[in-house]
């Protein structure tokens, strides 16, 4: 039983990262109806930004408490990723606003490759160590369970970010504009919504969440490389589809479910008869099943309330 609970915790902390990336996919899809395949690479750039910020700022901010320092890095990375997301949107996608959606999709793949190989050129292909922002310590008093403070912080901050996101989308004018745009872009612009600004904002917001995901992922696994965004990006895409693409709670739940399923399949591979080497295949089998049997995903309703 303990082992099962432990696997559940392992899966949830992995799933939280998937969820954060999946939110970016789902938001952009909700507004623009296209999959931003460069999203996973924005995530990668976020991890490297975190590494450099961490190294540069550490000597200057010696007296700072650890949590404040980690929070500052998180914030800086989110801002940097938002800027990158906005820039990509401005340079690559905006000129194609009136073109068929397929054109934009292919461009997204191009942007993804551009970021990966530019990353390799600048950062080198070798995996780099991510500076530990917080000292990892086990949380005591949980019986036989082993949960590190970092795992708990990842889950906690993810939940907090989700609440912020929910607030922005549901309670602010910008969120209202996003929802309006998602429902009907023409009508929205007739009602005085500046579509361009809203789209840029959506990209920025989604990318900032990818940046947060990157800092968490790198803190949990401590090794980063220019291709680290590819697989988590794909998995997060599966998570978004699993939850119903376009649905915010769907992306969240989809991410968590995917993380847990993946971990359980690996952890109980001998019982299930699936070699752990197939952990990545599991995600894509889920994608195929969803597309076959419930293409709208768990939370995807037809066209209601998609952002």
């Amino acid at each position, binding site marked *: 039983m303990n082992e099962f609970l432990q696997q559940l915790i392992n*899966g949830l902390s*992995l799933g939280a990262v998937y969820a954060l990336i999946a939110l970016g996919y789902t938001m952009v899809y909700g507004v623009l109806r296209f999959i931003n395949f460069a999203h996973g690479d924005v995530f990668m750039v976020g991890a490297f930004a975190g590494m450099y910020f961490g190294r540069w700022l550490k000597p200057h901010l010696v007296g700072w408490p650890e949590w404040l320092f980690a929070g500052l890095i998180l914030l800086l990375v989110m801002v940097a990723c938002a800027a990158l997301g906005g820039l990509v949107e401005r340079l690559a996608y905006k000129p194609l606003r009136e073109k068929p959606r397929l054109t934009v999709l292919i461009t997204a793949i191009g942007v993804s490759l551009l970021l990966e190989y530019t990353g390799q050129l600048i950062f080198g292909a*070798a995996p780099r160590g991510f500076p530990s922002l917080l000292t*990892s310590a086990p949380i005591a008093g949980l019986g036989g369970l082993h949960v590190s403070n970092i795992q708990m912080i990842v889950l906690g901050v993810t939940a907090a970010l989700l609440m912020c996101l929910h607030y922005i989308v549901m309670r602010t004018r910008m969120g209202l504009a996003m929802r309006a745009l998602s429902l009907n872009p023409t009508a929205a612009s007739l009602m005085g919504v500046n579509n361009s600004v809203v789209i840029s904002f959506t990209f920025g917001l989604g990318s900032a969440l990818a940046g947060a995901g990157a800092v968490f992922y790198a803190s949990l696994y*401590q090794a980063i*490389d220019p291709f*680290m965004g590819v697989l988590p990006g794909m998995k997060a895409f599966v998570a978004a589809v699993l939850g119903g693409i376009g649905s915010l709670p769907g992306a969240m739940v989809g991410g968590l479910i995917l993380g847990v399923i*993946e971990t359980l399949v690996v952890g109980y591979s001998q019982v299930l008869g699936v070699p752990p*080497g197939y952990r990545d295949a599991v995600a894509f089998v889920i994608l195929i099943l969803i597309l076959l049997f419930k293409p709208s995903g768990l939370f995807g309703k037809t066209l209601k309330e998609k952002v």
Partner: protein
Amino acid sequence: MLPLLGVFACKKSPDAGSLDVIPVGEFASLTGATASFGQSSHKGTQMAIDEVNAAGGVLGKKLKLITEDDQSRPGEAATVVRKMLSRDKIVALLGEVASSRSLEAAPLCQQAGIPMISPASTNPKVTEVGDFVFRVCFIDPFQGTVLSKFALSKGWKKVAVLTDVKQDYSVGLSQYFKKHFTANGGEIVGEQSYSSGDKDFKAQLTAIKGSQPDAVVASGYYTETGLISLQARELQVNAPLLGGDGWDSPSLVEVGGKAIEGSFFSNHFSVEDPAPAIQGFLKKYRTKFGAEPDAMSALGYDSAMILVDAMKRAGTSEGPKLKAAIASTKDFAAVTGKITLNAERNADKSAVMLEVKGGQFRYVETVAP
């Protein structure tokens, strides 16, 4: 006119290259997941070639080392080796450390009739490809036995095994370890696997924790082993880890830190070995690169020296004769010990066990073949 031009163009280029130098190819993982292997073996190889050239070269010519980076990626090794065979007209190929990538290049060299010497690929399948493929290190059936004997001598009866299913090296090493260990009274209490590039091992380690092993064999490369050790300690799996020569990289300690302390691995040589050949090599290497060599550098050096020795004995750099000369290498005094290539084109050499202690690899014992 046109066909004539073609003949002229074809004849011109290879001659110009081969007149004064002998092109020797080398492929290594200079970047990517196992960059430390490629960097080290390349430095060793380069040092050997420089030494030979400084002493006047071989057969009246200088050696020209052509190095290609395979980025530690599957598929890339075959591409770069094909390029060197067809474009650079190399007379011999040195490389790789990782068995999977050596296995990509070996059939190409065999087909082209160009001898290939791997410095450190320990999977038996590598030299089984054909009679043009050699290595200057021991093989995994031996390394697996060494690890198993070591575990038994420590009194570890229950061992869990963690294998990288994407690497032939890791699969082979785990298999040979299990064979010897179970045949000699040990029990394998858990078998888990992962794929190179994975970063999350918590699921596997949680499953291993349940079986309470005395030790965990992590037969993969240093890249993942460092992360495995961190996550194992986080989950309170405190059994020592046990691995093979794929651990040999400063990066293991860099990533693993305290978590990897007290773990053991088998290797080709130890820098603490007082043998004059090793100490002399250390000194030269430190002066040249300002860095500490590891087993991969020593083996890279040895692979190039064996090739040069064979060229001298063959009196030519032509494929079949060079191959025969390499095959008859006997009692060659190399850095990593006396090398005699056996009928399977492998070197029978002893292995050392090392312990990670204070961020360094400390010598524990030598195991003869």
